[in-house]
């Protein structure tokens, strides 16, 4: 008995480990390979699309980090500038010596002080550095020139001389006097000065004068944001609500069990424009994918009269048109049964049929936000429209499952015309949210909004399909 067992096992094992002759087997050649190649293409496509959200999320994080660091550095620089301007608002440098002396003196006295913090008066080919103490009286700083000519404080006045301070640019007034020329010579931070408290450059008695009025304690808010624009990454998690209206104009009327759309992750960029302290206009661009599943329960009277004999079984073909959120699809279903199965004519065959509509879309919101306090701080309400542009749509994942004991679902093909969908959709949006400035000039906002679909994704005279949306959004924006 044991030997017999082993013999049988060894026999089968050996036979199946031997070389198999292809001619003995009817290999479904091109048909199978075509299906495999098509599946691999789909997998590749899915993999590529799958990476996109990761890239977008990664880019958003990097952008946020970069903006944070950039903002931190600028804040530091502005604070330092602010401090120095304040210190130097009481200082006057008067030039009346030779170049070497001027260079030495000013370097010694001003040292690390920023060029922008110094007010210079070059007169009679000499420079003298003086400062004012808190009481306003002159205090001489220059070691060379002890004269205390503070008659024209806060004025640069040079004549045929090159003056070079720590960070000052060499200024030769023999050159034609042009604002663009000056701008290039003024160190970076100096560029802020003309915008402060209406400073201005002017030409006076063939000499260049830069007036530096007393700098106020605090810099005006104009330094932070002048144009009212803010920009940054945004992310939204969207729940979709399918709304189906009407009836199906085909033999499967009433058999649609469920049409539901899975939540989507939308990634993109937001651009805001401040209108006034309370009102902000929001726009931007978002990308997302939407997967909608349509489930049908099909009850088919199986006709044995229309059967075709295929080898050891009978086949029966059924064609139907089914409405989905992306348009009508035509299905070609093949059911089969074994020749000996006891199926009678018109016997009901129950099938589950499901398919997935896949959509890639770009959305452009146009919203108006009302801030309860002011932009960048506190709660806000918003309303507007969301415009959706469908850039790609297809039918995926078509499945059937027969519940009949003897009739099985052999194959199903779906014909779908991608152009029947409405490629442009609009929704009316309302929402509330909260915004907080996390770093200087950078705000984070969390909001929730609901969109009432104003257009149908697909409609026929008898059938309309639209999708409402509920979004949870997070934005990080930086004033630009």
């Amino acid at each position, binding site marked *: *008995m044991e030997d*017999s*067992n082993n*013999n*049988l*096992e060894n*026999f*089968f*094992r050996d*036979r*199946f480990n*031997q070389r*198999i002759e*292809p001619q*003995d*087997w009817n*290999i*479904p*050649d091109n048909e*199978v*390979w075509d*299906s*495999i*190649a098509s*599946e*691999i293409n789909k*997998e*590749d496509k899915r993999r590529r699309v799958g990476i996109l959200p990761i890239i977008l999320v990664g880019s958003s994080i990097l952008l946020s980090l970069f903006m944070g660091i950039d903002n931190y550095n600028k804040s530091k620089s502005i604070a330092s500038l602010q401090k120095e301007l304040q210190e130097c608002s009481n200082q006057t440098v008067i030039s009346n010596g030779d170049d070497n002396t001027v260079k030495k003196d000013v370097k010694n006295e001003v040292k690390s002080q920023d060029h922008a913090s110094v007010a210079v008066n070059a007169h009679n080919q000499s420079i003298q550095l003086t400062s004012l103490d808190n009481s306003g009286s002159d205090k001489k700083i220059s070691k060379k020139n002890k004269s205390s000519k503070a008659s024209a404080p806060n004025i640069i006045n040079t004549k045929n001389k090159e003056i070079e301070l720590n960070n000052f640019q060499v200024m030769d007034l023999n050159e034609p006097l042009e604002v663009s020329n000056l701008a290039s010579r003024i160190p970076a931070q100096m560029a802020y000065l003309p915008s402060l408290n209406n400073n201005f450059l002017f030409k006076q008695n063939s000499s260049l004068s830069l007036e530096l009025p007393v700098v106020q304690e605090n810099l005006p808010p104009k330094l932070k944001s002048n144009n009212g624009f803010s920009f940054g990454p945004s992310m939204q998690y969207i729940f979709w609500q399918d709304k189906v209206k009407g009836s199906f104009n085909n033999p499967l009327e009433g058999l649609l069990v469920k049409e539901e759309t899975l939540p989507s992750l939308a990634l993109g960029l937001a651009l805001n424009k401040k209108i006034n302290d309370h009102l902000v206009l929001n726009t931007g661009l978002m990308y997302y994918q939407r997967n909608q599943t349509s489930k049908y329960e099909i009850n088919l009277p199986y006709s044995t009269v229309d059967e075709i004999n295929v080898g050891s079984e009978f086949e029966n073909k059924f064609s139907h048109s089914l409405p989905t959120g992306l348009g009508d699809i035509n299905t070609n279903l093949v059911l089969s049964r074994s020749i000996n199965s006891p199926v009678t004519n018109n016997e009901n065959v129950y099938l589950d049929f499901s398919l997935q509509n896949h959509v890639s879309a770009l959305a452009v919101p146009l919203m108006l936000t009302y801030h309860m306090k002011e932009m960048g701080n506190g709660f806000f309400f918003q309303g507007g429209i969301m415009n959706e542009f469908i850039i790609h749509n297809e039918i995926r994942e078509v499945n059937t499952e027969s519940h009949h004991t003897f009739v099985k679902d*052999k194959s199903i093909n779906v014909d779908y015309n991608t152009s029947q969908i409405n490629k442009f959709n609009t929704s009316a949006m309302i929402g509330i949210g909260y915004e907080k400035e996390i770093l200087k000039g950078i705000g984070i906002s969390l909001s929730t909004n609901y969109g009432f679909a104003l257009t149908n994704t697909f409609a026929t005279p008898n059938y309309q399909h639209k999708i409402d949306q509920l979004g949870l959004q997070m934005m990080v924006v930086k004033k630009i």
Partner: protein
Amino acid sequence: MDNQKIKLCIEGNRVAQKELYEAYKVNLYVLCQRYFSDLEDAKDALQEGFVKVFRDLHQYDEAKGHVSSWIKKVFVNTCLEKLRKKKIDFQKIEDYDHEVVYESGILSDLNLKDLTKMIQKLPTGYRTVFNLYVIEGYNHLEIAEKLGISESTSKTQLMKAKNMLRLKLEDVFK
């Protein structure tokens, strides 16, 4: 199939992938037919198996054996997965307690196609355990884990499968 070709397959080169398909399709189609009584199911398994092979080929570790063994494992798992979806009920399969002792010499007259047909005619549970134990070489513990059954069920199914095959062989040579 050399390593260069496998690399090309991983990179998604369709020509290399077609070559791999051509090289293994016959053996793997026979393997699929051993697990499914229905040719359409076997064809589906062949397709699904190759898609999985091309998708997961980057996971193949050369140090762990030849690529053909890895591919075979992928196919066996694909077939089992498909069978699981069809819900094999090992407990409800009718009992064949008939013990038959058969002379082994006569078996050599049967070709591979006949043997495959015989295996195909076994009930799903018997067929699956028989394939896994006798042809693929898994032990009962491994089979039990793979199929979510007890070791004793696996042993019983194998014994019954062999008895049934003996009966079938008896019929052939009557």
